[in-house]
């Protein structure tokens, strides 16, 4: 697998023109003014940004730098990246086949996907056995417990006991539509409330779904971002077997990170074995928006006058162009949606991506605080999110900054209007 990534990365780094748009871009026409959150939250040295990492990767390929001898500061810098994709979004080296779409290109039109270069560099650090201790710990938990908290797998379905209705288990013949809870929401007390809200909404919308409970395993999204490619591969193969065994036809994910990995990376690494299963993958915001559109879900729309703003999760918005569905859900409640200056493809990371939730290099400050400040500037009373990592990061950010703004998942907002 590393060879596959290495080849792709090699092609990418030699396409870099070193123009620096991934680092310091400012563009009036679409409010692009802060591209890399690490420029705001670290010392901002070149290696913290995509151009520097690309150059370093190139030096490794050309034998001028030896990965095993990477310094601790460089390791910290490479693990500081949120893999939020903003640098890629603003990279100007586009696939010629997509030039006709300019300036409305999508993420995968870019020939240099900086995420991959960061992951590749991280994989070299992992291979050398030198990731930061926090990263080691998280990866150990994923390996042994299939979640970052090191909690038992049995607890993965504990949340359903808090519901006043029964949720079917796919392992016990509960259909073929899997509500994939992921490895954050079931274990994090705050994010569990989101699971409950989504489950209630899906029931009200008459969506026939089941869970895998303790048989659900991690998607490998975080392992992949942290550069543990072997572990990612193991998770992917195991999930393939599980989904095949239960004849899964559709997956509804809670986390945009899981959505992204099922949608984009499983097809690449599992190839035909995955595509043969023909599994439809949707984020829960898509399912709910569809239910509202088809009138299967009635919204009372009694939140008029409530000022809310929406934070686009990087893995949902920028990387998968899902911008409208969460907004449509918010608007269906009658709430007054005020956009942040940095929204949609320009969205600023919550600070939790790319392992940022678990690891903060010594000198890095809080991207989540920056984002909370941006949300507060809109005058909104509620910051709406659609990702369990964003939820927990931004709620922490509000507390750290002492800023009075309520952070809610879009499902939590909706449930108050049904």
């Amino acid at each position: 697998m590393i060879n596959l990534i290495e080849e792709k990365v090699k092609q990418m780094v030699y396409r870099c023109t070193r123009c620096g748009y991934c680092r310091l871009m400012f563009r009036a026409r679409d409010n692009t003014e802060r591209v890399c959150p690490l420029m705001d939250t670290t010392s901002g040295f070149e290696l913290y940004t995509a151009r520097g990492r690309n150059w370093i990767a190139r030096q490794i390929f050309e034998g001028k730098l030896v990965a095993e001898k990477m310094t601790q500061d460089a390791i910290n810098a490479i693990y500081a990246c949120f893999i939020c994709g903003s640098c890629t979004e603003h990279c100007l080296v586009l696939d010629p086949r997509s030039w006709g779409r300019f300036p409305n290109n999508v993420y995968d039109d870019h020939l240099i996907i900086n995420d991959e270069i960061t992951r590749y560099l991280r994989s070299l650090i992992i291979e050398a056995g030198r990731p930061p201790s926090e990263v080691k710990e998280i990866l150990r938990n994923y390996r042994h417990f299939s979640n970052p908290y090191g909690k038992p797998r049995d607890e993965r379905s504990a949340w359903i006991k808090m519901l006043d209705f029964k949720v079917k288990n796919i392992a016990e013949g509960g259909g073929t539509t899997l509500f994939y809870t992921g490895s954050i929401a079931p274990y994090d007390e705050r994010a569990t409330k989101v699971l409950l809200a989504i489950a209630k909404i899906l029931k009200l919308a008459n969506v026939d779904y089941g869970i895998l409970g303790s048989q659900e395993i991690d998607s490998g999204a975080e392992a992949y971002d942290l550069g543990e490619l072997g572990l990612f591969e193991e998770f992917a193969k195991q999930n393939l077997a599980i989904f095949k065994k239960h004849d899964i036809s559709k997956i509804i994910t809670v986390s945009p990170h899981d959505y992204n990995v099922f949608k984009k990376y499983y097809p690449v690494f599992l190839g035909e074995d995955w595509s043969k299963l023909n599994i439809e993958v949707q984020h829960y915001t898509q399912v709910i928006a569809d239910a509202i559109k088809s009138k299967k879900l009635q919204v009372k729309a009694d939140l008029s006058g409530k000022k809310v703003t929406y934070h686009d999760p990087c893995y949902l918005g920028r990387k998968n162009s899902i911008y409208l569905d969460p907004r449509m859900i918010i608007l269906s409640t009658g709430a007054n949606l005020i956009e942040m200056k940095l929204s949609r493809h320009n969205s600023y990371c919550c600070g939790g991506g790319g392992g940022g939730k678990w690891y903060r290099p010594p000198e890095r400050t809080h991207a989540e605080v920056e984002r909370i400040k941006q949300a507060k500037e809109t005058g909104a009373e509620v910051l709406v999110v659609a990702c369990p990592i964003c939820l927990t990061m931004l709620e922490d950010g509000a507390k750290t900054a002492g800023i009075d703004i309520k952070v809610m998942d879009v499902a939590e907002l909706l449930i108050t209007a049904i």
Partner: protein
Amino acid sequence: MQNLVQELVRIVGPEFVTDDYWIRWSYSMDSSMFELLDAKPPAIVVRPGSIEELQEIVRLANKTKTPLYVRGGGTSCAGTRGTRIPESILIDMTRLDKIVEIDEESLTVTAEAGITWGKLNAELEKRGWRLGVKGPYSGYAACLGGSVAYNAVAYASARYGLIAEEVISLKVILPNGDILVTGTATNPNAKRYYRYANGPDLTGLFIGSLGAFGIIAEVTLRMYPKADYSAYGAYAFKDYEKAHKCYYDWLKNWIAEDVAWYFEDGVSVMTPELYEQGYVSLLTYIVEDVTEELINARKKLLDEIALKHGGVPQSPEYARQGWIYRYELLPRWAGKIGMWQWTCHLQSAGGTLKALKTILGYIKSRKKEMDQKKVYTATVSVAERNCGHISTSVYYDQSNPESVKLAIEMAKEIARIGMESGGSTYKPGELWYPYTILKNPVYRGALIRIKKALDPNNIMNPGALTIPDKLEEV
């Protein structure tokens, strides 16, 4: 160097100084091919956050005789770093990115050198103003100070000239740490509103100096009211002479913001659909102004000139796209045909055609080898007020050493041909030295004497402008 690190930490704080080997390596490049050939990291990188910190760093370097290299956006493509001395300090200027003053009284804007052109343009626009020149072809991530220090060309140069011509004043940290302000503000009671005042034009000494005489800390530029109206035009020609007459007349009348002439190889690469129809030249113009009447009058004259010379009207999109998206369309070519090295230089307006033909003849003579090694060229002439300008972009495959080698050879040869055809470079750098400064001992001697006077310890970008590392020996 450890003592230096400690001293720098005292000046800017521990966060903004590093001597980490890998982080230093990430500063060993810019956008030129010269850094690919001879990438060397500095010993220390420092990111000052104020002019005072910058001043202290310079004083420290001067005291310890430590070479200083200054970096803005890191997007230069001319080979502007001098001798790559490892025991040196690299100053990353990008924290110095504030607008100091938008002075409506003086019709000028003053900004710190590390501000990007993107930010400067956007901030002015928000306040109802615009720049004449929009920024260098390195793009909107390039920084103001760097573009002035290497005398860059810009969008809208047909109307406003090189960036240099819009500079009103500079604030420069001299090698001994003193702060020099040029122009009207030489009088401490005066604002920065005109360049030529109170004595000789010292501003010009630092433009195109590559930082060899001091570090540009602040730049004052002219500003103009925001232009809400614009128009674009494109004309194709099958005949070089007619295209040149149109180009010449457009320049002579000095009414377009931007004029570009895509020569044969440029047409074949950039607009193959026109090349297939037998066109060997594409001329485009851009005008912007504050009223529709002014725009219409200028557009009318430009169109009449083009039609008189037999230009065949084409979609104005050829001009408009580049203008509205500024530099965003340039790097896309890297994804299609490879990375490029520019060979931009000035030519007299009337002499442009002859030089272009000579360059094209050379390119054709290398065609077979170019095809084998995946090297392509696109030659474009962008007007600079009364001057022509020729830039052959030599595209190459960065991952293929043979391709890189041929591209370097060709870029050097095109530079030589350009200079021997009466051209002159505006941005100095490694590509040009053999055909310019080194050919003129009197000019070079004067530069060395200035250097000795201002920077006797030779700490500022040593080796730049061909000034020797050891000043005492010259």
